[in-house]
Every structure is written in structure tokens, then in C-alpha cells.
């Protein structure tokens, strides 16, 4: 067993039953020589520390300040992001879709949980859960209301169902009142949800 990464004080709830089964499977995989537990630790550490919405936020902020980059990003997301060595390695098949006053984009995966991990990190629970997966393609305005946001009634809502290995990142509209802001300042306004299409960037007064 791999005592180094588990505390095991709690009761035998349904959860600890799962925990025991997961531990047993890892023990078997380790004993059979398929995986090295330290390599699993390294995977987890990478997902906990290296990837996250900060990667996507930097891309969005650059697109807001650099028209040539924005154009390239909308033409070929993977290629454009690949030119930014300091941002995460996005891999292939990233499509960036732009919000405008006429069109609001939202991303879902109705069949499972496809999500641009390299840009946004691992998806939140709600993105992978039945309410969002079932309703986003039929009642996106109702879903937005669950997030406490709305878009004008005449704005087109475009929902991208991620049914293949293409991945979608929403380029939200730049908030008003940010003229002259640096990329770094702007990146702090870009929320995860604004890049999924279930929210908007923070406004300057509310920046944290």
C-alpha cells in the first residue's frame, strides 16, 4: 500500500468503501509492474499545480491587447498558442470562439466531459454533472440563470458540443474601462467560467 499519500482515520462510509477499492486497484497495478506510484504522484502534482485557468487567462489577455495574435488565435488556436512558449503546451485541435455583442458562445460535452484541460485545468464538477450536460444544448439561457448571469434576449447563443477531440475555448469580450491596461492586469479579470461561456470577465472595479 501507499501510506504516504493517504490518511485513513474516517469511518467506513460509502466513500471509504470506494477509497479501499481504489487503493486495492493501485496496489494490484503496482505489484504487477504496470505503474510506479511515484509517477502517479507526479501526474497528480502536475494537475494540481501546473495546469489551470491561469493558462487560458493569459491567452485571452494577449488576444485583447494584440490584434495580430487575436487574428491568429481565431484562425488556428493551437498554432497561435504554440507560439507563446511560456503558456502550457496546448496540443492539437484547440478552437477559439469569440464572443461579440451579437453572439455568445458556450461550451459543453453532453456525452462525457471533454474540456480544454491545458487551457483551463481539470473541469469543475458541475461541468461533468448531469444538469449541465443535459440542459446546455436545450436551455442555455436557463443554465446561465443558474450561474446568475444573462445575455440580451436578441443575442445569438451558440452552444458547442465537444463530441470529438477538438476542444473549445471562449474568447470573452474585453470589459469596458480597461483601456491601457497591461496583459497582466487584464489576465486577472479573466475567469474560468468566462472561457467556458457560463460567465463573464470581472469588471475593473471588482478585480481581485
Amino acid at each position, binding site marked *: 500500500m501507499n501510506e504516504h499519500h493517504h490518511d485513513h482515520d474516517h469511518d467506513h462510509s460509502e466513500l471509504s468503501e470506494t477509497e479501499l477499492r481504489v487503493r486495492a486497484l493501485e496496489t*494490484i497495478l503496482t505489484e504487477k509492474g504496470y505503474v510506479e506510484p511515484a509517477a502517479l504522484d507526479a501526474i497528480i502534482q502536475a494537475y494540481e499545480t501546473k495546469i489551470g485557468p491561469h493558462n487560458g487567462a493569459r491567452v485571452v489577455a494577449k488576444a485583447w491587447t494584440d490584434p495580430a495574435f487575436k487574428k491568429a488565435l481565431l484562425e488556428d488556436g493551437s498554432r497561435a498558442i504554440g507560439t507563446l512558449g511560456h503558456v502550457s503546451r*496546448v496540443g492539437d485541435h484547440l478552437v477559439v470562439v469569440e464572443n461579440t455583442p451579437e453572439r455568445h458562445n458556450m461550451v459543453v460535452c453532453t456525452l462525457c466531459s471533454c474540456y480544454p484541460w491545458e487551457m483551463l485545468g481539470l473541469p469543475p464538477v458541475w461541468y461533468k454533472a448531469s444538469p449541465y450536460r443535459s440542459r446546455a444544448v436545450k436551455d442555455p439561457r436557463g443554465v446561465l440563470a443558474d450561474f446568475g448571469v444573462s445575455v440580451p434576449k436578441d443575442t445569438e447563443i451558440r452552444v458547442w458540443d465537444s463530441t470529438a477531440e477538438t476542444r473549445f475555448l471562449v474568447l470573452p469580450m474585453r470589459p469596458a474601462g480597461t483601456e491601457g491596461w497591461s496583459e497582466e492586469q487584464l489576465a486577472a479579470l479573466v475567469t474560468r467560467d468566462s472561457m467556458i461561456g457560463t460567465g463573464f470577465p470581472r469588471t475593473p472595479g471588482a478585480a481581485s
Partner: protein
Amino acid sequence: MNGVHDMGGMDGFGKVEPEPNEPVFHEAWESRVLAMVRAMGAAGAFNIDTSRFYREMIPPHVYLSSSYYKKWFLGLEEMLIAKGYLTREEVTAGHAMKPGKALMHGKFDLANVERIMVRGQFARPAPAPAKFNIGDRVRAKNIHPTTHTRLPRYVRGHVGVVELNHGCHVFPDSAAMELGENPQWLYTVVFEGRDLWGADGDPTLKVSIDAFEPYLDPA
């Protein structure tokens, strides 16, 4: 397969509940499951489409009542048993009872971690010219395979417009069943919300899927 995983358009699941300041993992075991799936996939025990199919085969009542990583765990365990990487007896015993089966890419050790942090590549050379052009009207086929497919039920039989051509990609319907990559052209096809959901649907809604060429007929 027409499983409960194919949720687009279903009613009754309630409100979306965002969690403020959500942690990356809620329990340590979730992170171990994620890491085992990534590691065993990278070692060559299965491809991503097969792993999705095994999650889809979880019985509906279990699927709907299990957390996300619980589904990953259940799918992983069944798949590894089915592919001969471990036995049900070993799972019951909680330890290995015989030597492991050879993995296509060998043991997953620390040296392999870096390579899985970049997404896999799914584009392949085209075996034939594309049948459809951007702007073409296409009808999603009314098909109901009992095996893995990425054509959601809610678009089947409906007409949409080809908006993007992503080139040729590994065909999940074949890859999931371990019948080879069978590359196919992949298109973004956009549907009017009212065509999918009827006259009462949101008139401002458009929904797109990414559809492989075998899913589509000219319309």
C-alpha cells in the same frame, strides 16, 4: 450506444450548482483514479475511446448515482479485467496473484510523466477526399449502434450546416472497439435550436456538434 451518458436535451436533472472555490480534487482517491487512468492509457493498456465506452457501459442506475471519478474507477477496473491486465480474483483479494501482462509502451514510470502532459494527436492523413464542403447542408444519420459512437441522439435525423472542416481524425466508433483508427473527416455541423427542440425552442439558439463523415448524409 443509446445510454444514459448521452444526456443532451434530457429533463429533470435540476439546477446547475457551481461550487465556489472548488478544489481540484475533493478526495485523495479521486486524484489516484485520475492518475491511474492516465498512466494505464499512456502505457498502452487502452485508448481514450475504449475508456469512454467502458464508462458508458456502467449500468444506468449506477452511472447516474456515481460521482465522476467513481465512474472513472468503475470503468477502469472493468476494462482492465476485460483486457486481461488483471483478474476479478485479484480485485477481490486486493493484491496481484500472477505476473502482469506486457504493456505496449511498458511500465509507466517517472520518465513517462512529461509526455502525457501534452494532448495526444488525433489528426491522421486523409485516406480519401472530403465528401462535404463548408456551407453544405447535411443530415445526421438516424443510426443507433449498440457500440460506442460520438453522434448524440438529439441531432439524429436533423439537418444542419457544415461550418468547419477539422481534417481527418481517428474514428472513435472504430477505435473504441479496437478495430483500428479508421480515420474519417471531421466537421463542425451547426443546427438551429428550433430544428432540434421544436417551435417552442429558444429562437436565438444554435447548437453544433463535431461530426465524423460517416455520421452524415447530404441534405
